[in-house]
């Protein structure tokens, strides 16, 4: 390649770049006019004249069979589903940008404010069935999907109320009581470690912000509030610091492992080798242990999460909603399908069986699969524990509008701390700063503190 040719090519590239910069005015999206800037009014809720086909995107295993059941009984409202588990939020985000969002999409609770900030949803509250659905769901889930009763943007689907999974055989062997408070849990951790240095009470995965957030939720560590036209960021609070400092103590004393990633093969291997005695988990975890550690059948029991004080309190880890997406012109039909999908016993039973979903609908606890004892857990009625847990979840907890970025910052800083660089509490400072910075980047008015 001659030098001249190179130069000409570079020049060409520069010209192309300059041209694209010149075309920027066309690139940027215009500011909305005054009317459009106001909160979008609830869309109308009229039944369509003819047949309707709805698009529904989700990540739930076996959901195609649930949708097929609906389609068989509802020839006038056909649903086409797409599994987007490869890149759930990437796919949804791109579709929104292209103006091709489906009518309905699965969105996690912690992603609802983030997507709403991108105008991803329509308010279905014009549909009488949508507002009436409130009574059919566990209270905290409705407060998330209605954004504190300001509209109906999604229906809750499943939840992850937290509880403590305990290897009762290990506890019995070391003559330990099952812990009721976090203090008792720490004492048990010490006793297990003293008895066998290779045995840990649990593991702390710094790369799992969703889990850590569940712990914060349990301690009423409200991360966000909104008042006076501004978001108030309180990721770093006395309650969140209490949680961080508690786990820091366990880590410093080497009572918990920090080298296992949640759900990874090494994590299952550690449980398989009887190196870990408990698991602080969510309702959907029951099938993880059942399916991955079949030889430990009968050795596990599930009890309420240890508490900070004397009163019962729990947190949620995971779970999803089915949201009404922007551009949905078939709200009437969408509400019909969405409420069948998430409140009808037949649909709930199928979703539980095929996808392992723990329903957000109150009718869920009456399902035979959830009312009976589970063989793997000594035929204990483990779902009663999760149902109680769900009732004890703080309903005012709010996720932030840039939660994904905050979670990444939290994880990176927690990982630094577990590698010996700083403390877990520093991660809260880092997450607080990331929250404020990312909100500033998205032009969302925010201040630190209450």
């Amino acid at each position, binding site marked *: 390649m001659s030098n001249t040719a190179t130069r000409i090519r570079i020049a060409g590239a520069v010209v192309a770049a300059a041209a694209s910069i010149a075309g920027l005015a066309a690139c*940027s999206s215009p500011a*909305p006019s005054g009317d459009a800037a106001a909160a979008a009014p609830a869309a109308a809720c009229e039944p369509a004249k003819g047949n309707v086909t709805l698009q529904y995107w989700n990540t739930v295993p076996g959901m195609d069979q649930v949708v097929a059941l609906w389609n068989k009984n509802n020839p006038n409202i056909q649903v086409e589903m797409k599994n987007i588990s490869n890149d759930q939020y990437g796919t949804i985000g791109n579709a929104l940008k292209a103006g091709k969002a489906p009518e309905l999409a699965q969105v996690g609770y912690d992603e609802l404010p983030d997507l709403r900030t991108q105008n991803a949803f329509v308010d279905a509250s014009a549909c009488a069935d949508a507002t009436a659905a409130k009574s059919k769901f566990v209270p905290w889930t409705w407060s998330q999907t209605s954004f504190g009763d300001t509209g109906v943007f999604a229906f809750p689907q499943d939840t992850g109320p937290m509880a403590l999974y305990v290897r009762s055989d290990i506890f019995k062997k070391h003559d330990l009581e099952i812990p009721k408070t976090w203090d008792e849990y720490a004492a048990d951790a010490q006793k297990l470690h003293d008895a066998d240095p290779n045995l840990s009470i649990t593991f702390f995965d710094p790369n799992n912000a969703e889990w850590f957030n569940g712990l914060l939720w349990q301690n009423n560590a409200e991360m966000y509030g909104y008042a006076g036209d501004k978001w108030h960021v309180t990721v770093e609070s006395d309650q969140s610091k209490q949680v961080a400092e508690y786990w820091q103590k366990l880590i410093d004393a080497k009572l918990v492992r920090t080298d296992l990633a949640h759900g990874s093969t090494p994590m299952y291997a550690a449980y398989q*080798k009887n190196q870990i005695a408990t698991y602080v988990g969510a309702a959907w975890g029951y099938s993880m242990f059942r399916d991955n550690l079949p030889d430990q059948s009968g050795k596990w029991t599930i009890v309420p999460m240890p508490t900070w004080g004397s009163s019962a309190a729990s947190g949620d880890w995971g779970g999803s909603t089915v949201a009404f997406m922007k551009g949905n012109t078939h709200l009437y039909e969408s509400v019909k399908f969405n409420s069948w999908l998430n409140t009808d016993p037949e649909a709930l039973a199928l979703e539980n069986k095929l996808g392992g979903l723990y329903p957000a609908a109150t009718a869920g606890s009456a399902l035979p699969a959830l009312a009976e004892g589970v063989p793997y857990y000594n035929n204990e009625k483990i779902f009663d524990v999760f149902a109680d847990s769900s009732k004890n979840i703080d309903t005012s907890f709010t996720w932030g509008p840039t939660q994904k970025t905050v979670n990444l910052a939290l*994880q990176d800083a927690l990982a630094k701390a577990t590698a010996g660089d700083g403390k877990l509490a520093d991660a809260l400072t880092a997450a607080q700063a990331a929250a404020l910075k990312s909100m500033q980047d998205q032009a969302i008015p925010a201040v630190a503190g209450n």
Partner: protein
Amino acid sequence: MTDIATRGTRVVATTGGRSRHNGGGPRAGTIAAFLIPFFLPFVLFYLVPIAYAIGQSFLVVRRTGGQYGTSYTTFGGFDQYVQVFQNTEFWSSIGRIGLFGIVQVPVMLFVALIMALLLDTPLLKLKAFFRIAAFMPYAVPGVIAAIMWSFLYSPQLSPVVDLLKAIGLQPDFLGPGAVLWSAANVSTWLWTGYNMLIMFSALQAIPQELYEAAKLDGASNWAIAWKIKVPIIAPSIILTTVFSIIGTLQLYAEPAVLRQISSNISSTFTPNMLAYAVASGNNYQQAAAISVVIAVITFVLSFGFMRLTSKRAGL
């Protein structure tokens, strides 16, 4: 484009007298027919996205109204670039990757060169086997290779770790200090064979007469390797170095996979991982600016290296 145009003219000049073609019509059509299959996707999937990213990098997000509001973008000048330059995470990812490249690229290319020279000696038996064996890892997709290695690194699963523990060592391949080199090892395993093959094919092109002449002059095999073969294939070595510099700056798959089992790889471990993390937080404009800066750094480093070495090597 200019390259091809120049060559085209040369062809016309040398064959001019005998050419049966009159005028440029059919020739232009032929050229276009050959070029369009390349240029159309090149423009659509290469130039347009680059121009789009550059465009995005000059925008900022603004918002009107309420708790959730409505967002729009507007021209923000060099705002996003100022933020990139102020971003300590960005510079530490560049520093990390710089350290990675300074160590991994020379090690990998040196091993590749030795392997290529060995394959080129008449002493080695089973050449075809060794050539294929060395090239094999390149046929394994990067993500699969990283998953495989992650099992070998994991203290819970790895027979290698068990073996080292049995002889009294306490290896921690996923620890905060070691994990960068564990990722470098995966890259080296993946790419050494590929680089070796480029060097080996250059060696194959050297005429045998040169070796005969050298032998007549009493040169040893060693002297032939270092004084004749290596200087002649210098352009290939430079080429593989440039590829490796580019590959290093774009490092993503290996650390992203190892991140699944090691919390010592942060979400901003490499520049590309940082850009991805920023984009996943909906800050496309900032991610675009980061991408443009990475591209410029890659461009400067690879062309800088080519300039530097082509002068030295007298190419």
